[in-house]
């Protein structure tokens, strides 16, 4: 089984420099099919730069990035139909309603009739837990949590293979954050999705991630949660040794026991 793991994203020898500052130096990362990969790291370690490189929004100095067999180049067409992205504050188009925002990618990449497109968008909006009143609203009339859900609906509009989440629970109250985590887990299980998620939230890390990638020393350390907490790197030790992380870990363990 282990040698048959399919990689949906492979990054090789990635180098990102800003002036004299090197953020990534020969970074390699492989993302497996159907996993939830959490991406963590201190501020300035280049989490967002890594994500932007993978999405073709940032041109790295060196290295190759392949997503679903598609070579990623800066500002060149990528596998637009096969990925969905949830940006930090949603990044919904402010001039369009939620419904129109969700319809946009469908209209762009398919020739479905208007009626079907509308119904499909409504389906996605329901799927993320919003209702029809929210669908007809403009992004600035929504709360932060609803905006994220709406943006998630847009990301899922074309039934992507990979979903990128940039701090999905940042700025949400604990209740909404937990709900959002559950939603992500539910969608992952039901839609055959691979998820790459930047997060600072230890609860979502322990709650939904299969593996964790930690950005340290201009490179990356990837392992399962069980293994990575034992890693000797000082930043990792500090991160997972902090009381919040310890609490989250215990809570996740208790929950896992409850289930079995």
């Amino acid at each position: 089984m282990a040698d048959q793991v399919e990689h949906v994203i492979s990054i090789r020898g990635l180098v990102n420099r800003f002036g004299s500052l090197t953020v990534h130096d020969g970074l390699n990362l492989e993302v497996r099919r159907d996993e939830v990969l959490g991406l963590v790291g201190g501020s300035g370690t280049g989490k967002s730069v890594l994500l932007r490189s993978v999405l073709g929004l940032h041109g790295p100095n060196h290295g190759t990035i392949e997503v679903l067999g598609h070579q990623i180049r800066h500002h060149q067409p990528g596998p637009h139909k096969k990925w969905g992205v949830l940006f930090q504050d949603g990044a919904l188009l402010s001039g369009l309603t939620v419904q129109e925002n969700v319809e946009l990618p469908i209209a762009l990449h398919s020739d479905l009739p208007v009626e079907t497109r509308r119904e499909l968008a409504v389906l996605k909006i329901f799927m993320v837990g919003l209702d029809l009143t929210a669908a007809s609203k403009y992004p600035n009339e929504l709360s932060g949590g609803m905006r994220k859900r709406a943006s998630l609906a847009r990301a899922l509009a074309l039934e992507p293979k990979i979903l990128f989440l940039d701090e999905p629970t940042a700025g949400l109250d604990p209740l909404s954050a937990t709900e959002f985590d559950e939603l992500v887990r539910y969608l992952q299980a039901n839609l055959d999705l691979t998820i790459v998620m930047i997060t600072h939230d230890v609860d979502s890390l322990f709650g939904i991630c299969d593996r964790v990638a930690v950005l340290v020393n201009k490179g990356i350390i990837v392992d399962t949660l069980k293994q990575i907490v034992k890693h000797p790197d000082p930043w990792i030790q500090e991160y997972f040794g902090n009381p919040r992380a310890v609490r989250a870990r215990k809570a996740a363990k208790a929950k896992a026991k409850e289930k079995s």
Partner: protein
Amino acid sequence: MKLTEEIDALRVMGLNPNQILIIPRVLGLMIALPLLTIFADAAGLLGGAFIGATVLDINWFAFTERLAVTIDTQDLMVGISKAPAFAFIISVTGTLRGMQVKGSAEELGRLTTVAVVQSIFLIIVADAIFTVVYSRIGF
């Protein structure tokens, strides 16, 4: 738009932001500004007629009669022909600076000011060029 990652979102969906954000604005202004020029011309003439009638004791009939003699279509065309060029300058400067906004709302304000100042400057330069060219060809 740039601030809230909307432009990134467009790119990720496979849309070219230059195409859908810049071109409509440039074309839109190139249509709207000549119309605005006509409107401003009309308002100017009406204002002149009003002051003439109320303050200078030139009645409406005399005003329109003199107007027809002193002003011809060419005067109107000189103004309107410049408008699309000015519209192009304003919209390109505005959208270009808008695309350069990075990070903070402060930056947005700064670049808005930059765009306004540069537009005004470029319009003065363009107007000077128009004047030279028009006087050369006797337009």
